[in-house]
């Protein structure tokens, strides 16, 4: 290599590290990363104590990496390399054709049994009609689209266990979902089912509750239909993915529904401030508030429903709210009083427990329902 060539190579190297260094110093710091849904590390305050304990140096390094210029672009570049290397997953998310599917890890058998027992106990303790819905994840519905031999727990075991509930009435929805798998029932970039997927569960529930004639028709829905495009969900973020078609969230702006939360003004069940944020699924009820009551002003609405749920129910509740006068959402984590007592207080006529399989199998709080 001639001297000139050596100079060019040295120049390339020095320029690269220098440009990155200068950009890193000048680049404006961000508070929050929507892609990662977390606050980024900020410049730590210097202290001699922190320096000698090693805390400051560590914080400084985290800060430097978190605030590196064009952070999301570098992450995207790594993603492209991984795809070029024919990797079939990233961070536990499988690449399955045009959709992303979260790996389903084997649950803790003892907890699973505990939680199922708690659901039966809930039915027993309250003496109210208690219905249970277990929603499989897309790993179950689109099992055949997973990469060959990809490890994923078979959710059928959980669904079968649900069918064996004694006191609570199990409403199977997985078959209806399987039958409709060609339709847009699960988001491609998010772990939730779509509002359409939730409709299938809604139909099943209404039939089980003897309200078959109240089921909203497609025409009725069409009249209040809203669509929010450009939704990139949790799976997309988790995988650090790129180049996927964004999802569209469909929601129905039913008139006459209000949501009440303690210490807050009654408001719409849809929090429209999320429409132009990344986390668009929080449009439903503004995420997962700890306590929530949905009231329906229409005179035809009747009955009070008590719901114990995870975020899968968020797109289902608006349909149900059209039929019930009151829906109370009970979160066992935030309520000190036993659910049976709460059911009496709010005058519930029936109870729905709705969880996604993975959440149900892992959630420590489901056990609290037996109180």
């Amino acid at each position: 290599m001639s001297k000139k060539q050596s100079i060019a190579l040295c120049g390339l190297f020095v320029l690269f590290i220098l440009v990155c260094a200068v950009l890193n110093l000048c680049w404006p710091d961000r508070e929050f990363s929507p892609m990662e849904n977390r606050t980024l590390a900020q410049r730590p305050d210097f202290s001699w104590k922190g320096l000698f304990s090693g805390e400051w140096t560590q914080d400084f390094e985290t800060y430097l990496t978190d605030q590196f210029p064009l952070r999301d672009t570098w992450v995207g570049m790594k993603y492209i390399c991984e795809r070029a290397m024919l990797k079939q997953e990233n961070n536990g998310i499988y690449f399955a054709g045009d959709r992303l599917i979260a790996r389903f890890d084997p649950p803790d058998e003892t907890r699973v049994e505990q939680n199922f027992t708690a659901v039966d106990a809930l039915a027993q303790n309250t003496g109210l009609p208690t219905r249970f819905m277990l929603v499989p994840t897309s790993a179950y519905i689109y099992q055949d689209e997973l990469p060959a031999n990809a490890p994923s727990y078979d959710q059928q075991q959980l669904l079968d266990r649900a069918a064996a509930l004694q006191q609570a009435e199990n409403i199977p929805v997985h078959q209806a979902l399987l039958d409709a798998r060609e339709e847009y029932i699960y988001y491609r970039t998010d772990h939730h089912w779509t509002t359409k997927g939730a409709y299938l569960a809604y139909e099943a529930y209404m039939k089980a509750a003897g309200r078959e004639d109240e089921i909203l028709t497609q025409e009725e829905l069409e009249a209040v239909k809203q669509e929010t495009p450009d939704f990139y969900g949790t799976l997309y973020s988790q995988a650090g993915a790129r180049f996927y078609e964004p999802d569209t969230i469909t929601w129905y702006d039913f008139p006459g529904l209000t949501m009440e939360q303690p210490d807050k003004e009654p408001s719409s069940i849809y929090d429209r401030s999320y429409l132009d944020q990344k986390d668009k699924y929080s449009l439903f009820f503004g995420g997962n508030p700890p306590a929530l009551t949905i009231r329906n002003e229409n005179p035809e609405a009747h009955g009070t429903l008590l719901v114990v749920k995870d975020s899968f129910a968020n797109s289902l509740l608006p349909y149900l709210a059209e039929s019930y006068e009151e829906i109370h959402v009970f979160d066992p984590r935030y309520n000190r009083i036993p659910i049976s007592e709460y059911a009496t207080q709010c005058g519930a006529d029936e109870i729905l427990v709705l969880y996604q399989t993975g959440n149900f199998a892992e959630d420590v709080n489901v056990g609290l329902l037996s109180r």
Partner: protein
Amino acid sequence: MVFSSILFLFLYLPLTLGIYYITPRRWRNLALLVLNLIFYGWGEPIYVLIMIFSILVDYSHGLLIARHRENDRFCRKVVASSVIINLGLLVFFKYYDFIVTNLRAIFPALSFLEPLGLGLPIGISFYTFQTMSYTIDVYRGDARAQKDIVSFSTFVTLFPQLIAGPIVKYKDVDDQLRERRESVEQFAQGVQTFVCGLGKKVLLANNIGALWEVYKTMDPSSLSVLGAWLGIVAFAFQIYFDFSGYSDMAIGLGRMLGFEFKINFDYPYISRSITEFWRRWHISLSSWFREYVYIPLGGNRKGLLKTYRNIFVVWMLTGIWHGASWNYVCWGLFFAVLLMVEKAFLLSILKKAPAALGHIYTLFLVLISWALFANEDISRAFGYIGAMFGGGNGLWDSASLYRLCSYLPLLLILVLASMPLGKKLWLRLKPSHRWGAAMVLCFLGLLLSTAYLVDASYNPFLYFRF
């Protein structure tokens, strides 16, 4: 501070190179010394004191020997003192807890001894060896005593090789410390070596490390034969590309500052015998042990029995040097036995046998040795080796098959990168084309390594549960 970090690449390194090259030549060792101490003290400022202590000890011991050269008995005592102090430091910080835990297990009466739980000062295994060999070399007349404490300190603290080697002997860099002419050609070579090392560490080692991570924590009884082998192959690649990548980065950084260090890895996985493997793996460590332990003990010139004893001693020490745990001792002794067998008769057979046989034999045993090395819990290590031969759960499992497919392209790249293929291709390239290739490869290497380094901190915080 580690080389493969945003902090080092885009803050410390540009500052260091800038400060180093604007400093007038005669002050460069001093500038480098200060920069070295910042590098070392970052994160663990207190342990700088231990290193300074080690420097002062050997600086003074070297001078003492140089001044009392005619008094051999005294000089021997000085050497002994240096060895005792350095090994004392090493034993105290690295092995105290290990020794105490074992003593307590054997002699319950000693239960008043408590493990201290001290953190291991970074690089202590490397710099104590370097300073110790300095005093020994001065005594042997292989190195001149360094009168300038700045130059000597610069040598001990030299940041490129400070925390993960190679173990640089003082006599090899003596001239360079006194007088070195940095050149743009040497710097350019340094860039190539450094980026190559960076890519090895960040793009290859870290990625295949993720595969080993899966098998590392699995219960050996649940491992299939395929899984156990896949796991240990992943580990073999991870440790080689991690370690040799780090050595390359050290050599490259050294060149950027005008130093030449000897190579530390020479394609170890193409060896045809264990003897050859150890001539190619971590060369600076095995040559250190050869020079300062094996040969002083008599090497192979005092009869077969003594030769075997010497091999045994050296490899036990090599094993324990890698970590304060019994599995490393086993790992060292495993090699001791193999080297004795090769010395006795196997080596001459292997030389005549087809090359493929030698490769298979070597890789097979090296992989077994990694199973000992990678599992600190010795019963787990044996369980793991058992699983490699069917003592676990069946021949194969679908998850391992999936991982094999998923990692196949990377594994192929790793196999090719373990062979001198790239080097051969490089040498066959027309010299006029090499520059262009070097430019493209360096740019890509830096770009992709940065992407992977930034991504390593990608940490989505998502409530899947709700």
